[in-house]
């Protein structure tokens, strides 16, 4: 059954709940019932540009499926364009790097939102951004995972990870002087975008030692090399590191006058050099160290997400036309 048909058939809430629980794309948590006409209306509002929506890596997945799955995940209509953009970004990554590399069942995807839509949808970029408490973050991340599984990716067969329930956040553009990710990638600041990274290992670098920046970079390189080790089940597949940097670390870099690009270059040098810290990482360029500002105050750590799925994909988020 398509997600739409499934919903139409349920007679009680409990019936709806048990049917959705059995679906291949389900995660075990409750789904939200919705009106069929909402799907049609949302597709209308996306406009003519999406009349020929198709995913290269999963041609059987329709725009109607993506909308239905988003609503089932708990999205409001207004969140659907972000899901559509994220799914297209993921599709582009698969096109570049391959289905199995990007969508390994053990892999997790994170959606990063940039631009004005973050305020419009209350996408959390600050304190608690990776976790529960914000509908936009929770449901957008979840919807992307629903689509991934609906497209045929199996559940993890080794351990799995809670990040496979949902993982989405916004870049803290307002809380940082750094150039936002989407602008680095060629979009105008007032364009809203969704960037997706597929990763197999996450790590938190908790380090409160107060050392000069060059030494800090060396210490980070040790941590990043360590985290990146043990992701090489794809052999030569290209390594990408996503680094999420909160208030305190950004303070450190800003005090030293370092832009995001400076940090990328310094880390690239440290990670690829042959030195006493062990085997250098294979990175093509500083662009393989993707940095975003996110997270709250007072915490002396940053998070890294290491993947072998190639460079994250970025797509503009379409507008929803006004409800007629």
């Amino acid at each position, binding site marked *: 059954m398509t997600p739409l048909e499934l919903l139409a058939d349920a007679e009680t*809430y409990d019936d709806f709940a048990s049917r959705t*629980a059995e679906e291949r794309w*389900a*995660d*075990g*948590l*409750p789904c*939200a*019932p919705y009106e069929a006409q909402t799907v049609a209306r949302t597709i209308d509002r996306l406009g003519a540009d999406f009349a020929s929506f198709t995913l290269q890596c999963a041609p059987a997945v329709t725009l109607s499926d993506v909308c239905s799955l988003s609503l089932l*995940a*708990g999205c409001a209509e207004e969140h659907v364009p972000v899901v559509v953009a994220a799914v297209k970004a993921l599709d582009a990554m698969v096109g570049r790097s391959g289905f199995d590399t990007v969508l390994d*069942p*053990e892999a997790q995807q994170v959606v990063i939102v940039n631009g004005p839509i973050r305020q419009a949808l209350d996408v959390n970029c*600050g*304190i*608690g*951004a*990776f*976790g*529960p*408490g914000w*509908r936009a*973050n*929770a*449901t957008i*991340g*979840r919807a992307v995972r629903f689509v991934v599984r609906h497209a045929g990716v199996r*559940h*993890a*067969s*080794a*351990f*799995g*990870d*809670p*990040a*496979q*329930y*949902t*993982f989405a956040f916004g870049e803290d553009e307002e809380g940082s002087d750094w150039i936002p990710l989407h602008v680095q990638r060629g979009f105008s600041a007032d364009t809203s975008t969704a960037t997706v990274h597929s990763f197999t290992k996450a*790590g*938190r670098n*908790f*380090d*409160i*030692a107060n050392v000069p920046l060059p030494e800090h970079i060396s210490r980070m390189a040790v941590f990043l090399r360590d985290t990146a080790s*043990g*992701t090489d*089940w794809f052999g030569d597949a290209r390594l990408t590191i996503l680094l*999420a940097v*909160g*208030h305190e670390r950004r303070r450190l870099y800003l005090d030293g006058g370092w832009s995001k690009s400076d940090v990328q270059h310094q880390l690239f040098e440290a990670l690829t050099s042959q030195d006493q810290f062990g085997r250098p990482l294979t990175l093509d360029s500083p662009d393989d160290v993707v940095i975003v500002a*996110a*997270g*709250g*105050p*007072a*915490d002396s*750590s940053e*998070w890294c997400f290491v993947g072998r799925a190639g460079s994250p994909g970025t797509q503009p988020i379409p507008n929803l036309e006004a409800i007629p």
Partner: protein
Amino acid sequence: MTTAVRQPTKRYDGYEAFTAGAIADGWSDGLPIVPPTAERVEEFLSTIGKDPWEVVGTIPTRDIEITAEQVAANAVMAGCLPAYMPVVYAAVQGHLHRLGNAHCVTATLTGASQMVIVNGPVRREIGMNCGPGALGPGNRANATIGRAVRLVVRNCVQSVPGVADRAAYSTPARYSYCFGEDEEATSWDPMHVERGFARDQSVATLNSMTDAFALFDDRSDVPELLLDRLVHLCRVRPINRDQYLGDERTMVILIGPEHRHILEGAGWSKADVRSYLYPRLTAPHTRGEGERDGQGLHTTGGPTDSSLAISAPDKLLLITAGGEGRQLSWALFPHIASAVSTPIIATH
């Protein structure tokens, strides 16, 4: 305040109105919630045989008393089936135990998660996943039990993200992090038996933790080599003695199936593994006088080698879960709480 007082109720026309109202009142973690109707809550309470107003635990720092009715309402909202409620209840009891240190672990900057580990027959009775993909989504019991505990943290412990919950980044593990130990796949004693429970007693262990450090090792083919690498990983971050937790401080290590095969294949029991690990994890570090650790905080241990303050071997908890295909084991770093194991008691 232990009087026969019931929670207030609210009336809604339908699901859409309920969703809007519940979100406005802050009841949800952001994902869809099941309406906690009076009928459903009564049904859940009947599975544990508790009066609605019975106090499960308190948070003295916050003047909070948490009742069975509140826990049941959150379990309904999470999407649990009634048969899961006894597991949720036991997990919450563990969280609210003195050693669960609920105020601390749910407010911390670090964003500790509340991992629920289930042992005993209940796992099969309610269809929990203990094997492939067990730490992630896909199983209704795992997902909703873990979520119910976290909704209790939000709504009853009152650790709302960005308010009392100061987790700077937080993690997706704080949506739900629950699984069963894979007792059937191994001859090893399950954790609850090692902790003194009968094999056929179902038990929920609440483990508030910060990070899961992965040991990826596809080379070591004898126990000593594998476990030496595990020791090295565990000693990267210090676990310091906390006077409040005292000798009760625990650390949980999850041995994945591929690594377990190597250990079992060599005839090693959990006790053998523990005997090898414990002295090496707790061996004094070699840091010089005045040197701080890698985090710049404590003047104990080397930059990447610190002793773990685990008072006795039986405080090193070993579990096994997951599926094959990745040669991984996990060091589950605790926050300032001990793993608390509570019997799961269902009234039929």
